[in-house]
């Protein structure tokens, strides 16, 4: 195979005041024409750095310190800025992760396209315009001509990413580097974009490097895979080989950690390869412990009951009611969650699943409908004492581990806040003891309590969040995409922790996710949401094996093909 691009022993350094970070070490990889190479790794593995280094757009103060980048046989390292400029766009195109921010909001799509076409193709005037229309049509945008006059904000996310791809293609490059091109998109759109890339690659004989953390994306598009770990390439090979029969330990563990959609496992296999792994559980005896004291008599009824919930958000304010623009976030949603059950809520972004969670947690007030927590109506008079007491049994774990902890507070203060506020411990010493035990219990260790959140990694922060939720002695835990911001390996350990807690404490869990495999592993029953309404509620296994609703079937179809994954040893 002729190689379009080849890097040899590429080193990238970021000199900082604390010493030099070697973001990439001796990276060698190659792409041929018409080939899609997946560059996989977890965050911080250096995969994006490679993409940026190839096109010479490393963020300051990063630099290539050693090795070479050969593009069609020519050395790219050490080229002048103007030489690189003539390569960028003309011969190598680049696609970034977030289509929301990749386009200049103040210029029309047409202007941005034509500007790029004029630079790369030496076309002017109407021929540039014709070319722009062609490009848009190629990436699947219909009625392209009038849309040239539109601004980026008038397009949806998927459409914008198509425009971004059109821009990358404008100079008819030989190589495209796509840096997490679908991460910001919904599953259904993700599939379309990946198909588009694949098609373009085939049609134009393009070389494509796709940088991603998502094994599923690699599985569905890549021909070959390069796995990176901490700046180094640990394994390279054909996609079927690497995913099906990984050789390197890291790759094995990484693939093992991917939630399986094809069957329910008892526990997630955690990625053993990671150094400095989670400390073993410090088990506490629930029955005698402070945590257990709140587990009053158990009702065998429903922990959560939701009836005909309605909620609309105001998009555009107006004094006259009928002039207001409303969006119905939740429409006629009814379901119940049994005590001790894990109930999954799935759907794409904007389907209203998070809104339902927030309604139950009391962060929004419903326009109509009833919410009962442990039999107590909490929606009709939310400020009443009884409603508040009932709500105390509900706690929530959030998606973003970074914004869900107050950066200005020490871990102890974060976790102890509910204990102190409700005076559920008899004194400060006991409070500290309980916090220490909680931190032990979630696998952080009591010594974490005096540190600040920024000293912890994403997974560790989620553990702090869990400890905080536990400190309220909840009986119901709402998990709103608790792992979607985490790496696969970390995701597994957090999900295991949640599972364990749920079993030990007999918690009721409302689990919200867009990730069907995860939901399948976690949940007893699952509700599918779309456009604010419920499509289907079913037992987990029933749903996956025999979806009733058309939309459920559609969603299941969109699940990344995992058939390449071999039965990796756990």
């Amino acid at each position, binding site marked *: 195979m002729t190689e379009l691009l080849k890097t040899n022993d590429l080193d990238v350094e970021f000199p*900082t*005041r*604390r*010493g030099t*970070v070697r973001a990439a070490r001796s990276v060698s990889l190659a792409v041929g024409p018409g080939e899609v190479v997946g560059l996989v790794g977890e965050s*911080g593995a250096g995969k994006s750095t490679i993409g940026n280094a190839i096109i010479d757009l490393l963020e300051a103060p990063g630099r290539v310190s050693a090795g070479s980048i050969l593009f069609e046989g020519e050395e790219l390292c050490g080229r002048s800025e103007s030489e690189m400029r003539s390569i960028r766009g003309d011969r190598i195109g680049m696609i970034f992760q977030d289509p929301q921010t990749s386009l200049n909001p103040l210029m029309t799509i047409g202007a941005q396209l034509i500007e790029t076409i004029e630079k790369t193709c030496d076309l002017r005037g109407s021929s540039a315009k014709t070319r722009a229309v062609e490009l848009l049509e190629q990436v699947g945008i219909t009625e392209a001509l009038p849309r040239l006059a539109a601004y980026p904000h008038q397009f949806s996310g998927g459409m914008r990413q198509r425009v971004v791809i059109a821009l990358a293609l404008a100079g008819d490059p030989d190589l495209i580097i796509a840096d997490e091109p679908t991460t910001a998109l919904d599953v259904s759109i993700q599939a379309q974009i990946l198909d588009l890339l694949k098609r373009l690659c085939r049609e134009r004989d393009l070389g494509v490097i796709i940088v991603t953390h998502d094994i599923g994306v690699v599985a569905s598009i890549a021909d070959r895979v390069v796995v990176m770990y*901490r700046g180094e390439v640990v394994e390279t090979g054909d996609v079927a080989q690497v995913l099906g029969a990984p050789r390197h330990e890291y790759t094995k563990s990484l693939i093992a950690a991917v939630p399986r959609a094809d069957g329910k496992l008892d526990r997630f296999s955690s990625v053993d390869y990671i150094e400095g792994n989670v400390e073993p559980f410090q088990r506490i005896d629930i029955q005698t412990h402070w945590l257990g004291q709140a587990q009053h008599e158990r009702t065998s009824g429903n922990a959560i009951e939701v009836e005909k919930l309605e909620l609309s958000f105001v998009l555009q304010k107006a004094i006259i009611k009928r002039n207001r623009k409303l969006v119905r976030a939740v429409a006629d949603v009814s379901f119940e969650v049994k005590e001790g059950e894990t109930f999954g809520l799935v759907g794409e972004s904007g389907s209203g699943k998070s809104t339902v969670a*927030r309604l139950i*947690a*009391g*962060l929004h007030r419903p326009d109509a409908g009833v919410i009962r927590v442990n039999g107590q109506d909490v929606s009709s008079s939310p400020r009443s004492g009884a409603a*508040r007491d009932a*709500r*105390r049994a*509900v*706690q*929530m774990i*959030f*998606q*973003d581990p970074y*914004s*869900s*902890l*107050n*950066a*200005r*507070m020490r871990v102890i203060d974060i976790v102890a*806040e*509910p204990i102190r*506020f*409700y005076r559920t411990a008899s004194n400060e010493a006991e409070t500290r003891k309980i916090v220490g035990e909680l931190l032990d219990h979630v696998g952080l260790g009591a010594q974490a309590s005096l540190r600040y959140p920024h000293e912890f990694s994403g997974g560790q922060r989620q553990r702090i*969040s869990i400890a*905080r*939720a536990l400190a*309220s002695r909840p009986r119901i835990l709402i998990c709103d995409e608790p792992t979607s911001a985490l790496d696969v390996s970390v995701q597994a350990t957090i999900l295991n922790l949640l599972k364990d807690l749920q079993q030990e404490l007999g918690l009721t869990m409302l689990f919200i996710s867009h990730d069907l495999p995860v939901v399948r592993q976690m949940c007893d029953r699952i509700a599918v949401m779309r456009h604010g309404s419920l499509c289907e509620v079913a037992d987990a296994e029933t749903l996956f094996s025999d979806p009733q609703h058309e939309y459920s079937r559609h969603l299941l179809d969109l699940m990344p093909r995992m058939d390449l994954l071999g039965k990796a040893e756990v």
Partner: protein
Amino acid sequence: MSLQENRPTTRWQRVRDNDIVWSFIHSPGAVFAAAITLFAILACVFAPLIAPFDPFDPAQISLWDGKLPPAWIEGGQPQYLLGTDNQGRDMLSTILYGGRLSIMVGAAAVCLGMVLGVTLGVISGYVGGVTDAIIMRIADVQLTIPGILLAILINGIGRAFLPLELRQEFAVYVVILAIGLTDWPQFARVTRGATLVEANKEYVQAARIIGLPGWLIMLRHILPNTLRPVLVIATIGLALAIIAEATLSFLGQGIPPTTPSLGTLIRVGNDYLFSGLWWITLFPAIALVVLVFAVNLLGDWMRDALNPKLR
């Protein structure tokens, strides 16, 4: 990453390791600015201990010593290092005491504006709705009337309102009020913006789910997280407040000449600019500009240091 492993141990190392402290130590401008600001503040705060004379004590002033040039110029006297003003007050002492007053007025005004603005800003951003609309409309009105005009007006009203014997004593407070009141919308707007961002963050929602009351959430969670930009504005605001005080006093609407601030000194000295008694106006002017410059430099650095994007 691997670098994180050798975590500093001692407290000092931790402090030194802090990004902002590091950036501070490695920015000569910031160190210089901080040094001058600190020096100026110390000199002014301890003016009664340092200054050779007490210019506020009329009994120490001898008119016959008036208009003496600085000590190094012919006719100058060694005890009056920077010369004397038209009343026979020692310039060095007057500047120290005047600077003290200027800094005090500036700091107090900024504090007033900050407390008012931050409180209203947090409430406005967190509570939202009608409360937000009312507070922000008031801020709009406030912004519609330029600060210096409002200060002049408040001063005028203060003068007209206060009984004769109180006016002198209250002149300083009126100026503080005047400048402070014109400052708050800035703080309110920034704090409100930051609050809107923070209030949507999940830690605030977590606090709500725990069941904490609104005031506690605002105080304990939102407030500390909005203070960074506030700090920057406060620093730059201090510089502006000092200028505002000087300007008011220069226009004759500020601090009375019996207890002169730097602005009043410049106003008085300005009358002597053409008559060759340059030191009466030049030294206070230099003191004022250096002081404001240092504070500005500090604020400037702080803005860059606290803005991770520009680092």
